[in-house]
């Protein structure tokens, strides 16, 4: 048995964990006491790290689809198959897309970037950063990703806009409570009550698309000496995400602290896994030659797949079928692909649609770095040997490049770490607006619907649902509504209703909750069922619906 200190692979806080284990077995995961982020504490996800990664549901060998069924194969056969299919494709700059992961290391994101642009020769490369935080691009030059947890603890006014921080980023929530205990004022701005409302000095309940109207908060902000403004998922995935986030940045300027509930979301961006980085910068900083054709983001890739102009997609560690939203159209788009490669730890819903599945190592099986939400670079160290025949994502990319007769000149991760250190691209993105759906209630769709994450969640849930204890935390998915509204519609608890949005339908039982405003419904979800994503527009967790009572 040995102990290894490494960085937790769940939310963007980036706790340091001390993992004890050997071979393929983890016996203990505890927080580092001396580390400045974890300081002796982990959230529910962090404590279950061992159970999640050392799990017999992991994919042990490459899989190739034969007559509609995924069958185990050797690495040699799988990589050969991929290389042949790639070489048969024409128009690769338009026809192939690459989706990176917010969970792989910086080094692996760098390799994926290089692989996409130089080996495949496409700029169609994107990651969950766009998926979850697209509104940031409009104001990216004003954000420096440099506010720290220590700044937070020292502030005298904390404004939390659109986040249930205790669920999204527990170490951030811990600092907020510390600041409050030391006398800071706490203001919560949200369309729905969150647990911290009970201890807040002020709760400003906004309309779901009305975060712009926060004059009252502005006056508190102006009087504070050292204010900080935390912005979370309800803004980034809200019904009017771009405008709301832009308004927040215009109001609160450099005091805005966007929180990331996925660990290495900044690592993907900082290493150019994005269609929005300039070719000249990639050339200059990373020595990467890009093709001329403008790249598509992941929403555009999905649409291009739906029309048939994108023929092949290489998806690394992202369960896009379930994380993107608009489930039915996303599924149809993925099913239309001529060739889908998925590289992941588990046979996710996306992987099940793939023509080839490549087994990747988890965070406890590889070496590299993550960047947390404060922009701090943290070390990732291996403790386990790779599960089955799985390989680190970076190694798979290197092997694939070699197989495609275009080897990338790296022997190991260390040589890549040296090449990219201090060359990150975070400050090289230009402000630009990404098209996101804007949702508004109307006579056709008169109700707001928030798809609420479970008490413990991480991205699409494909990792967490491998922990029995975390699954045990899940409660049945129901739709919560205010009793006045229920009365008006002659509904009571446990009645079955059908929710209809522009993109899909869903049947759920009713649960009455007095905490919810009258024209909002909240859909409680859980890790084991993602069918609710059928209701959502791409990239959002809010939508508008109508409701039908079922007998």
């Amino acid at each position: 048995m040995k102990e290894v200190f490494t960085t937790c692979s769940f939310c963007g806080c980036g706790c340091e964990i001390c993992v004890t284990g050997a071979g393929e077995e983890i016996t203990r995961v505890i927080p580092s006491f001396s580390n400045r982020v974890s300081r002796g504490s982990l959230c529910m996800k962090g404590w279950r790290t061992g159970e999640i990664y050392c799990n017999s549901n992991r994919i042990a060998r490459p899989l190739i689809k034969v007559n509609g069924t995924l069958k185990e194969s050797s690495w040699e056969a799988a990589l050969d198959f991929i290389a042949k299919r790639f070489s048969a494709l024409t128009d690769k700059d338009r026809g192939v897309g690459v989706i990176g992961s917010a969970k792989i290391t910086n080094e692996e994101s760098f390799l994926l970037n290089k692989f996409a642009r130089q080996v495949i020769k496409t700029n169609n490369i994107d990651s969950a950063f766009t998926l979850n935080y697209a509104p940031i691009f409009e104001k990216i030059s004003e954000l420096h990703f440099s506010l720290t947890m220590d700044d937070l603890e020292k502030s005298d006014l904390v404004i939390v806009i659109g986040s249930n921080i205790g669920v999204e980023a527990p170490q951030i929530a811990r600092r907020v409570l510390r600041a409050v205990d030391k006398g800071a004022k706490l203001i919560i701005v949200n369309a729905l009550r969150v647990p911290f409302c009970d201890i807040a000095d002020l709760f400003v309940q906004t309309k779901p698309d009305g975060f712009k109207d926060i004059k009252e908060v502005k006056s508190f902000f102006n009087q504070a000496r050292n204010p900080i403004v935390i912005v979370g998922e309800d803004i980034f995935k809200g019904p009017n995400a771009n405008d709301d986030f832009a308004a927040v940045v215009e109001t609160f300027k450099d005091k805005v602290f966007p929180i990331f509930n996925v660990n290495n979301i900044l690592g993907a961006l900082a290493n150019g896994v994005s269609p929005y980085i300039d070719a000249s910068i990639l050339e200059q900083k990373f020595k990467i030659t890009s093709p001329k054709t403008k790249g598509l983001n992941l929403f555009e890739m999905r649409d291009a797949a739906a029309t048939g102009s994108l023929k092949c997609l290489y998806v690394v560690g992202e369960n896009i079928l379930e994380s993107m939203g608009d489930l039915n159209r996303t599924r149809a788009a993925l099913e239309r692909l001529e060739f889908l490669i998925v590289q992941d730890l588990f046979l996710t819903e996306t992987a099940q649609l793939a023509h080839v599945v490549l087994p990747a190592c988890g965070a406890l099986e590889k070496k590299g770095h993550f960047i947390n939400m404060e922009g701090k670079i943290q070390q990732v160290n291996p403790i386990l040997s790779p599960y089955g025949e799985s390989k680190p994502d970076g190694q798979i990319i290197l092997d694939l490049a070699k197989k495609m007769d275009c080897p990338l000149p790296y022997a190991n991760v260390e040589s890549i770490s040296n090449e990219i250190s201090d060359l990150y691209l975070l400050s090289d993105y230009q402000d630009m607006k990404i098209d996101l759906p804007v949702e508004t209630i109307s006579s056709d769709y008169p109700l707001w619907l928030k798809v609420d994450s479970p008490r413990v969640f991480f991205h699409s849930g494909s990792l967490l649902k491998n922990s029995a204890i975390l699954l045990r935390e899940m409660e049945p998915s129901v739709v919560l509504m205010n009793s006045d509204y229920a009365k008006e519609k002659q509904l009571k608890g446990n009645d079955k209703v059908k929710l209809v949005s522009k993109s899909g339908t869903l049947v759920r039982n009713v649960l009455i909750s007095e905490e919810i405003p009258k024209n909002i419904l909240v859909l409680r979800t859980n890790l084991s069922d993602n069918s609710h994503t059928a209701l959502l527009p791409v990239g959002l967790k809010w939508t508008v619906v109508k409701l039908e009572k079922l007998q």
Partner: protein
Amino acid sequence: MDGGEIGEASMKIKLIKEANVSEWLNGIIKKYKVMAPTKIGKNDFAFKAVKSAGDVSLEFLNPIISPVKDYLFPEKEVMLTYRKNGNSWDVESNLVDQEMVLFGLRSCDLAAMLFMDKFFLEGFKDTYYEVKRKNLITVVMSCREPMETCFCVCADCGPSSKEGFDLQLTELDGQYLVEIGSAKGEELVKLGSSFFSDASERNLAEKERIMEETKYNKFKMPTTYFSKAVRHVTTDDISENVWNKLGSRCMSCGSCSYVCPTCTCFTVYDEGDLTEGKRVRTWDSCMYGGFTREVSGHNPRAVQKERVQRRYYHKLSYYYLTKMGCHGCVGCGRCVISCLGGIDMSMVSKAARRNE
């Protein structure tokens, strides 16, 4: 335990020079498996199996997981392995029957062990705990520099142990006073008999003086609320408002249960499949909703506030005090470090006392 305990009246006391401790410890390591505080990572500590006294750092901060809990009731324990063999099963237990010296543990953790003994050994005996416990030899190191989160004084569990140890070392000027608590402890002393000299009543008085001084001058936590908190929790006169606020702060991470050395809840599951696998027990937490949810879906502790309330009731109420003979809190301060919500024994005690 059956180690042949020595009564307080006949407690033997010895002295060993600080400079000789390493050599004595090396002698112990030759004969026994020894776990002692070592530095790991950048600035963390853990009790690990040591190969020589050189691996040990006696100037340590008590690790976030109690060494007694870590050893006797670990985070993940393989109880048995199974393998299908024709029509029957080969089942092997993973019990290791080997003596082990835990060198340098703190008095709070010793108190926690005595508490765990009651849970695991009284009435139904938990074999996994029992086998390890009967083989465990404890060498307590009195605490002269408590951490700023410590409040053992108010739980009456430190900074030095009164009973239950095999040996207890207290640092005096350039030497250690060694209190021998059992025949097993005496065996350890014999392994280095040339290093030990007899101590006098004066040395013992000096130890008491130093410990009193530590008690009064070195603890930073507000500790005087504890007994009042016990009363308020027992009589249940704490307002709903207090529990509401605590419930809103709790992020149900479970850290409090995991780091608490008197928390003994676990869950059991199987890893593997129907042909081969292992049965594992792992720590569980009453802070989780799923911990109490019934098959019907009904949850007697439906919201977080009720879970927090229940935890403190369990730790402090007079009912458990009479049942277990002591509080469910030894004042180690780990919950003060670990709770994401900043809810900990001292904060709850304070809130209970002020009732706001």
